[in-house]
């Protein structure tokens, strides 16, 4: 009897302890579930910035004087979000060093409109007003070379960023008066890789040169301070037979010529560069692929320079042009006439320039064009 009572009391004590531990574990498990749900919510956020990203500035009162107001448009493709903070980092002028924008009820320096911080699920073209001091203006978005990066931080800890102005992508920016040129690409052929040379401005060229002149490309305009892509050529060099032969001749190298005008107020030096083109081929063999190329040589004022040297000596003086020649190794156009027609190129060339006394300057040039079989 006594033994039974002892065993029972110990058993009940253990049972009570187990129940208590189970309660603790349940509480802990609830915390796990809540935090897991929070994590799921965090990664369900999906914010997308709508072109043009920022509009403005417009001058509004506040900021102890005038504010530069920018209108940021975003769409929410995920669950509802709350914007906690916005960082803007510019190169050159504007938000350099970084601008940190916190919510504010009214226009004030380095803030964004508090009422705009909530973005509902599925809400499109949501406007968020940003306020910077009147003395702080973001770099001119024309031409559309990215100069500012905007980071949108949500209260759940996600960061969504975009570059402003948007970098040129595809044909979306054809109409923008900037360092984007588009139109029918000029195609030139030479007899071999030794005789390839710059096509003349009037359509002339070197020995064996064949140039299909089309309407002038859409030339870039813009303001001083940037490089502009004027127009491209593609030169196909190969050994042996004329192109295209359709008989499987080996085509070794394609050169892409790009002509740039220095509209800066000081000389520029082209130090390196590369080019990535996407080839979308139609016709008898549809396919699309990327081809990389490197800066092969320069042609400035009638003199050729190999890349890697001082390019060119003394630099490209303002308002003069330089021809850059990219060598696309390991790729050749299709070897039959049928598949050449409709071949399109699009690519982004990046050139790094060392401007005297002003560090490095990067220029991006977008190539876009239709590869048309020459009539010669």
């Amino acid at each position, binding site marked *: 009897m*006594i*033994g039974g*009572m*002892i065993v029972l*009391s*110990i058993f009940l*004590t*253990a049972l*009570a*302890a187990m129940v*208590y*531990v189970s309660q*603790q*574990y349940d*509480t*802990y498990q609830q*915390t*796990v579930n*809540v*935090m897991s749900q*929070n994590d799921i919510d*965090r990664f369900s956020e999906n914010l997308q910035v709508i072109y043009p990203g920022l509009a403005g500035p417009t001058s509004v009162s506040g900021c102890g004087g005038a504010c530069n107001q920018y209108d940021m448009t975003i769409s929410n493709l995920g669950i509802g979000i709350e914007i*906690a*903070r916005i*960082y803007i*980092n510019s190169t050159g002028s504007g938000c350099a*060093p*970084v601008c940190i924008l916190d919510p504010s009820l009214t226009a004030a320096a380095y803030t964004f409109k508090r009422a705009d911080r909530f973005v509902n699920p599925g809400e499109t073209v949501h406007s968020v007003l940003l306020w910077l001091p009147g003395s702080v203006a973001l770099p001119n978005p024309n031409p559309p070379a990215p100069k500012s990066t905007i*980071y949108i*931080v949500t*209260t*759940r*800890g996600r*960061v969504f960023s975009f570059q402003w102005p948007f970098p040129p992508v595809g044909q979306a920016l054809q109409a923008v008066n900037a360092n984007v040129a588009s139109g029918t690409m000029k195609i030139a052929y030479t007899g071999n890789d030794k005789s390839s040379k710059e096509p003349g401005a009037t359509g002339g060229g070197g020995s064996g040169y064949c140039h299909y002149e089309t309407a002038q490309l859409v030339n870039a305009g813009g303001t001083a301070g940037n490089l502009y892509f004027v127009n491209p050529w593609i030169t196909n060099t190969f050994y042996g037979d004329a192109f295209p032969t359709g008989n499987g001749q080996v085509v070794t190298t394609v050169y892409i010529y790009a002509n740039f005008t220095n509209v800066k107020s000081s000389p520029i030096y082209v130090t390196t560069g590369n080019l990535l083109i996407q080839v979308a081929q139609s016709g008898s063999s549809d396919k699309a692929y990327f081809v990389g190329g490197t800066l092969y040589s320069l042609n400035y004022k009638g003199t050729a320079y190999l890349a890697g040297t001082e390019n060119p000596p003394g630099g490209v003086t303002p308002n003069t042009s330089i021809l850059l020649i990219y060598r696309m190794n390991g790729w050749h156009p299709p070897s039959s006439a049928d598949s050449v027609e409709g071949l399109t190129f699009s690519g982004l060339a990046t050139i790094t320039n060392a401007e005297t006394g002003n560090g490095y300057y990067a220029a991006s040039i977008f190539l876009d064009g239709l590869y048309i079989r020459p009539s010669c």
Partner: protein
Amino acid sequence: MILITLSLAAILVAWAGTSYGAFTGGTQIFFAQRGQSLQERLVIEYVYFVKGPPSKIEVFARNVGAEQIQVAAIYVNGTSFSGTSMAVKSPCTLQSNAVLLTVGQVCEFDLAYTWPTSSTMYIVAATLRGNQASYIARGP
């Protein structure tokens, strides 16, 4: 005999009760601490490189969890910054060699660090409860 048996039984029950009590108490502390640690969420939301001189790295960390956080140290490519070397900016303050971040709060840390151009920085912020937030950035 009965007296001896009852005494031993009382001792046994007392021992069992004490043991179970210690067990449940330890369990309670364990789950409470695990729960608090689990509710910590620290994110490094932005890093800005200041060329200087002096060169420094500005790290912005936010508490997006459900518990307040104490940042004990920040590491930049293995170099430790703790205490006053974290150089936390107002309104955040250093308390007992750690920076307290309430729920939703963001703090800026100005780390005196000479960063080579175009170098990759692996930044880790560590909390007193043992959690970490990491960020990889490349200097300009």
